[in-house]
């Protein structure tokens, strides 16, 4: 005790430093890694047009199945080429853009749709709520892959339809959150109080409820985003998702499958990107949840 009094600054700076170190030790490498990988992905996705060394459809039949750089390849094709001589690096970049775009729009659609339906259910109650709850139950009871496949069977495939379909994945998660939190706010909480002040629904939902549930929604978005990436790559892998000449990560893995014995890099490059990207978002999501929850509660 006396020592602390004699050296207040040293003790406090040591203790504050150890607090920071202790706090960082939770995810020191993980979050940093995740953050930098995702930044790289976003840069590639945005700047694919500028960064592409080759067009994705440019064949070079003389350089078919060329191995990547450290396995006997050249700088001309750092990640090798595929069976038609197309540069893997370029295709990978465009695939990243496509997959990220689909995941982004899908997540946004799911969040908006789900939150809206959740609000409607909580606001109108009775029949509207029962209907929406039934839809939520239905969505939660079937694996979405099956529903997606059924819709693709009936409607065929086109990119806008596919993105819309992805947007239906996990909307029920947001609907449940929005409905639950709105009901709580309405019953005894701040929403009831503001309504009593004379506020209209626009003000209540827009200025009060939405900001309060935003962080929970955002954490859910970090779950949905990788799930859509996995879903989309699975469907594209099966040949039922993104169709050529467009390319996506799953697509590339699908094509690369045939050459798994001779040219495994065609499949490994996109597969690695998928795994690292979903891993990064999951790590980031976990960290975000830890950060946001204590202040929320």
């Amino acid at each position, binding site marked *: 005790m006396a020592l602390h009094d004699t050296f207040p600054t040293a003790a406090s700076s040591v203790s504050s430093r150890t607090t920071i170190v202790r706090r960082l030790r939770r995810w020191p490498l993980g979050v940093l890694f995740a953050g930098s990988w995702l930044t790289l992905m976003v840069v590639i996705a945005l700047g694919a047009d500028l960064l592409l060394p080759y067009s994705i459809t440019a064949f070079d039949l003389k350089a078919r199945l060329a191995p990547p750089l450290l396995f006997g390849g050249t700088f001309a094709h750092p990640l090798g080429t595929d069976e038609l001589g197309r540069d893997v690096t370029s295709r990978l970049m465009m695939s990243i853009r496509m997959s990220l775009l689909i995941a982004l729009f899908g997540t946004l659609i799911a969040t908006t749709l789900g939150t809206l339906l959740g609000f409607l259910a909580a606001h109108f109650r009775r029949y509207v709520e029962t209907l929406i709850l039934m839809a939520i139950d239905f969505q939660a009871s079937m694996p979405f892959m099956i529903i997606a496949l059924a819709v693709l069977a009936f409607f065929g495939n086109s990119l806008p339809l596919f993105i819309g379909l992805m947007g239906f994945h996990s909307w029920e998660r947001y609907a449940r959150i929005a409905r639950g939190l709105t009901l709580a706010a309405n019953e*005894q*909480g*701040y929403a*009831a*109080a*503001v*309504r*009593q*002040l*004379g*506020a*209209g*629904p626009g*003000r209540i939902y827009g200025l*009060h409820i939405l*900001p*309060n549930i935003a962080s929970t929604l955002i954490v859910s978005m970090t779950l949905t985003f990788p799930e859509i990436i996995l879903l989309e790559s699975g469907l594209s892998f099966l040949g039922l998702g993104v169709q050529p000449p467009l390319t996506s990560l799953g697509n590339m893995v699908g094509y690369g499958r045939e050459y798994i014995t001779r040219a495994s890099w065609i499949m490994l490059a996109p597969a690695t990107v998928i795994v690292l990207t979903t891993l990064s978002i999951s790590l980031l999501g976990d960290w975000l949840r830890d950060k946001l929850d204590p202040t929320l509660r």
Partner: protein
Amino acid sequence: MTDLLEANELTRHYQVRSGRGPFAGKATLRAVDGVSLRIERGRTLGLVGESGCGKSTTGKLVLGLIEPTAGTVRYAGAGMPPINTAAWRTLRRHLQMVYQDPLGALDRRLPIGVQIMEPLAIHGTATPDERGERARTIMDAVGLQAHHFDRYPHELSGGQRQRVVLARALITEPDLLVCDEPISALDVSIQAQVVNLLLDLQDRLGVAYLFISHDLKVVRQVCHDVAVMYLGRIVEQGDAGHLFAEPAHPYTRALVSAIPVPVSKGSPRRERLLLSGDPPSPIDIPLGCAFHTRCPFSTAQCRAETPVLRPHGDGRLVACHRVDEPALRTAA
């Protein structure tokens, strides 16, 4: 003095299931069962009773927050518009509410100053500059300091939060404030401060209160008139001072006798009236007088016939068949 608010035979029933499963029978929960009140400008009406007697529901009915199953509410002579219509919302400038849980009633993400100003923003009554001014004025009136303006609700104490809720409710200068257990959640010392604040504000602003509480000591202090509720009905009503000094209805007598009062040597022995049994459920209200199952004086008439509120002299209303019998006065 003209009545500010008049409620007539307010009734609110809920349909509930009385058992488990989808084939259970239906039952009616009679939360409020024919309540009539009058609140006058600048005066305080207290509403007391046990938990579950329908006080809070009555408060919400009076404000028009829930639709009555039957009965009417008239504010300043005009009927109450249906909830959530534009007319209802405009009326909110004159009718406000204060809650038991101030933390739940505030948005945790906004500074309290912004929340206090919000009613002005909603009703568009002042320019943005004026709003800040008026907010600070009302904060001063409720005893909050200027630097609290930017604080968040969780950074304040319970008493301060209740002041914030009061400030927000009073900033539009309403005529009526419904206070639903406003001090139950506060420490006893803070309770006294908030009670004094309420009295002070009534003097200064002339606002009327409907003061809902189960704490009789506070009600006695704050209210001009008191109505005692039991299972959705008013059993006794009258001037606060007289009612607590000389309660007439057996239920009121039991409540008053339960108020702890320090006994000193030589003070007259107080009446101590104990009730037997548990309060019945509002789904299953006894026939006749709802209180007869616990009343020490109940008779066959009480079991068969529901008493109505009748004048008992001196502006008092009592709903009891045997209230005029002098022999009951000294039973204990």
